[in-house]
Structure formats: C-alpha cells, structure tokens
C-alpha cells in the first residue's frame, strides 16, 4: 500500500500557543481518512500544513514524497479549505476553468471538466452565475466541486458538509463514497456518524495531540464488543445484559446506549442479545458491531 502522506514529529506553534504537538502519522492510498477533534484541537492547522498554506515550526511533512506546496503536487492534491470562497465577481464556470487551466488542462478541456464537476455537485445549471448570487449551501458545493477538477489523488475536505441541508449533505457523502476508489479523501467534520460511515482510518486531534483510531472497533480473537442503543431508558438493562452467559462487561456509554463486551463463542452473541431484548419486551434502535467512533473517542472507559 503506497504512503501518500507521512508526518514525522510535526509541531506548530502560534506564538506561545501550541497548535500541534509532535504529531506523527501516515496516510496510505485507500478509503477516506477522518480527522476529528473538538474546536481548536488543531484540525484546520493540520489541514493548512498539508496544503502548504502555513509551515510547521518543526518536524517533517511529506505528501507523495514532496514538501507541501511543491509544484509536483499541483493537480494531484486538491482541497476545500474551511471558509475559503471563490471570487464573487466572476462566474463560477470562469473561475473553475481558470483552475483547470492552472492544473494543465487546455481551455476547452478545463471548461468541460468544470461543467462535469459542477454536475457532480448538482450545480450544472448554476455554471454561469456568480458566487455572490448563490446561497451558502450552493457556494459550499461549488467550492467542493473545485476540489474534484482533474484527477486528484488526495482530496482534503475541511468541514465539507457543514452548513449543508441534510439532502445535500447526504449527496456529498454519497459523492465522496463513489469517488473514494479514485482518490484518497481526508475529511474533517464534527459529524462523527458521517465519518464513521465513510472512513476507515481516524485521526483524532485534541489539544494538538494526535491519536489514531479505526472507524471499525477492534475485536480480538476471543472477545468482542457491541453497542446497543435502546429506544427508551430501561432501569435494569445494565443488570440484565450483565447476566447473559457470555457477557464480560456492560458499560452505559450514554443515555439509552450500552457498550457490551463479550467472550466469543460458537453461538452468535448478537442473536442472544436481541432475543434477550425481545423477552424483556424492550425495543432497540440500533445495534452496532463494535464501538461507535464517538465512544472510542469520548468514552474510553
């Protein structure tokens, strides 16, 4: 598996504030990678470093063997930077065509490519409009479309679905999912369930420090986890689940939600658990095989 991005001991300081603290990670070509963390954790700083918008105070960051900002990355790495806007005075197609030309396409091809990416985000009809004439959500989709021009190998989207209505957010997620065979997406979002659906590798930043997770929980050979979300609060649920023969530990992760650790056996544990709920007359909302990303990050106990 080829390494696309490699960070070694990357530190970024803004005056006395440490935005990134000795961050090291590798991103390989493959399924989308999530970058999560609370506000001010350093996500946008890490994005900015990878895009070459700003520079690390120390450490080394390499993208496809090149330093960020190197001309060899043009067209191979694209991004949706947070809050960045197109020029409000020019039509969208004009600006996207310009970007396509800078990526090495002829004017004609750049124009066709611009029309194609606008179609991808459902804005084919808005090509000749200016960004200032569009709604916030449409502007966001236009800025996503510029990141899809050409054949990028890495696409970084910072808060791509923030500010989009649920329908368009879903369309963007589907688009990312559909294109994830062609490019490696790096996504930052506060919507953990969205990232869970899309991503394999998860980089979690908190106070500038990085930890790595898998969107799928880790099960070992002889123990497993399930996360059960009940439809309402049942007082003795924890006790009942604990009494099941293969259950090792039950943890109430949040209201109506339980993380159940069990010993693997020949019998399917999830069937046992659902039968137990049925016998108790309890309704469940969701059964997840493993830990949710949210629980991995915020409820480590």
């Amino acid at each position: 598996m080829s390494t696309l991005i490699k960070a070694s001991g990357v530190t970024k300081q803004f005056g006395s504030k440490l935005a990134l603290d000795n961050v090291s990670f590798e991103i390989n070509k493959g399924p989308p990678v999530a970058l999560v963390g609370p506000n001010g954790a350093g996500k946008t700083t890490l994005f900015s470093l990878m895009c070459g918008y700003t520079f690390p105070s120390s450490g080394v960051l390499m993208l496809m063997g090149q330093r960020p900002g190197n001309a060899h990355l043009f067209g191979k790495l694209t991004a949706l930077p947070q809050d960045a806007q197109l020029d409000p005075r020019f039509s969208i197609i004009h600006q996207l065509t310009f970007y396509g030309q800078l990526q090495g396409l002829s004017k004609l091809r750049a124009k066709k490519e611009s029309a194609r990416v606008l179609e991808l985000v459902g804005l084919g009809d808005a090509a000749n409009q200016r960004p200032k004439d569009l709604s916030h959500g449409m502007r966001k989709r236009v800025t996503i479309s510029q990141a899809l021009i050409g054949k990028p190998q890495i696409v970084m989207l910072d808060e791509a679905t923030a500010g989009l209505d649920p329908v368009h957010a879903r369309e963007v997620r589907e688009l990312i999912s559909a294109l994830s065979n062609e490019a490696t997406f790096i996504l930052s979002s506060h919507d953990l369930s969205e990232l869970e659906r899309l991503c394999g590798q998860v980089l979690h930043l908190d106070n500038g420090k990085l930890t790595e997770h898998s969107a799928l929980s880790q099960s070992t050979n002889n123990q497993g986890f399930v996360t059960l979300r009940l439809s309402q609060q049942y007082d003795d649920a924890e006790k009942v689940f604990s009494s099941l023969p293969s259950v090792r530990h039950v943890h109430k992760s949040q209201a109506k939600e339980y993380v159940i650790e069990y010993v693997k056996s020949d019998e399917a544990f999830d069937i046992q658990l659902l039968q137990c709920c049925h016998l108790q007359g309890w309704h469940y909302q969701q059964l997840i095989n493993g830990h949710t990303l949210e629980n991995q990050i915020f409820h480590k106990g």
Partner: protein
Amino acid sequence: MQLNTKRLVNIALFELVRLFLTKTGLLAVAVFSICWLLVLRYGIAEAVNLLSSPDFSQFIDYIFGAAGLSKLLTWPEAELAIYWLIAVYSFPIFCLFLCTDQTVGDRQRGTLRFLSLRATRLEIILGRFVGQVLILITLLLITLLATLAMLAYREPSLFFPGLLHSFLLLGYLVVAVMPFIALMSFINTFARSARLAFVVAILFFAGGNIIIGLLAWQMPVLEVLNYIFPGYQLADLAAQDAGLMLSIGLPLIQTMLLLIFAERVFARSSL
C-alpha cells in the same frame, strides 16, 4: 524556485479579465476614460492652443524654462508633449489606486488557498504583477491613441512621426510605472486590506521622504537613500533630462528588488 511560464501567463491574463469583464473593472475603466476625456479636451487641447499661440510663446518659454521642461517645447507634436507631462506624473499615482488589491483581497477571502494548490507563490506574485502591467499598458495605449487622434486631427502630417514617438513614450511610461506596481505587490503581501495597502503606500512616500530628508540634513551622503523611492527619476524623466540609467535602469532595478522582497515575504507568510 519553481516558475512555470504557462501558469504565470494564465494568472496574468486572468487579471486582464478582472478589469474588462467584471462590473467593477468596467466601472473603473469608464471613470478612467471620462477623466482622460476631460484631460484631453480641456487640458491637452487647450494647452496646445496656448503653446502654438504666438501671443503666449514668450510666457510659455519662460514657464517651461523655469520648470526645466524647455526640451518639450521642441517637440513638433505638442499634444504628445502635454500628454507626456500629465501622464508621467499621473499614471504612477493612478497605479497606486489601481493596484491596491493584487493579492490581499484574495487572501482575506481565502481564494488564494485555491490558487496556491495550483500555482507557486512566485507564479502568483509575478502573474499578478504582469497582469497589472498589461492593464496599465492597455490603458496607456488607449490614452496615447486618443492623443494621437487629436494630433492627427490638428495636423495630419504629424501622425506617423507622432506614432513612432508614442511608442517611445509608451516604453518610458511602462518602465516608470513598473516600480509602483511592484511596490503594491510587496505591500499586498503583508497588508490586511486593499485600503490599508494604499495607506501604507502613502505613508511610505510621505513618511519616508520626511525621514530621509531629516537624515540627509544631518548627513548629506544619505540623500542617496532617495533612490529607494519609485518615481525618484520622474522630474528628470518629464524634462527629458534623465539618462538611460536613470530613466530605465533605476526603475527596473527598483522593480526587481521590490518583487524579490514581495516573493520572499509572500513565500513565508501563511495563507
């Protein structure tokens, strides 16, 4: 240092489009055209009448002589002489207005972030600079052609000599405005808005002149510092008294140094 000519040309041409295909750009061109129409009609045309009037010839000789501009009176193309006098001072100042927003607006809006993933910072700085130079060449050409038209209307036989002379003047004027554009390129790398960029430029000229004046008063040798100011040669250039080094060499060196500073600052700044 990575520089791709094709990308640079694309960026420069996009600047031209900014002026001629956007409403604000067209508005600027319209205001510019109206101002120059007034200059041509009430400035140049009237001045030419005065210059060619025998009643005022002695007075004009005295005034131009006192101002060191006697050489201009020898030009048969009087329209071009007056045009030159107005253009050589007004275009550099106009440049400061026109070039206030080379990169600063795009940086504030985040548009530079899209651009910097497709072009090096050197290409962006140089591309924008070249784009502004192209805009100024276009505007200079428009005004020169209008002046030539007036000249041909008054004296058709002067059209072809005037045309050749115009190309020479165009060359001098383009070189004269280049350091002003480069200065704005440099200021744009650290200013936080186009308005602030203009204020910084004014402070640079006003404050800088005062400071160097005071320093030179204490140590006359420091008068040499005046060479850092774009336009230092304009008075000599206007009077056609500047040698090649002063009229061409100095502004080109200033331009080059300012662009190097601009690239260095821009390459190190966060977008």
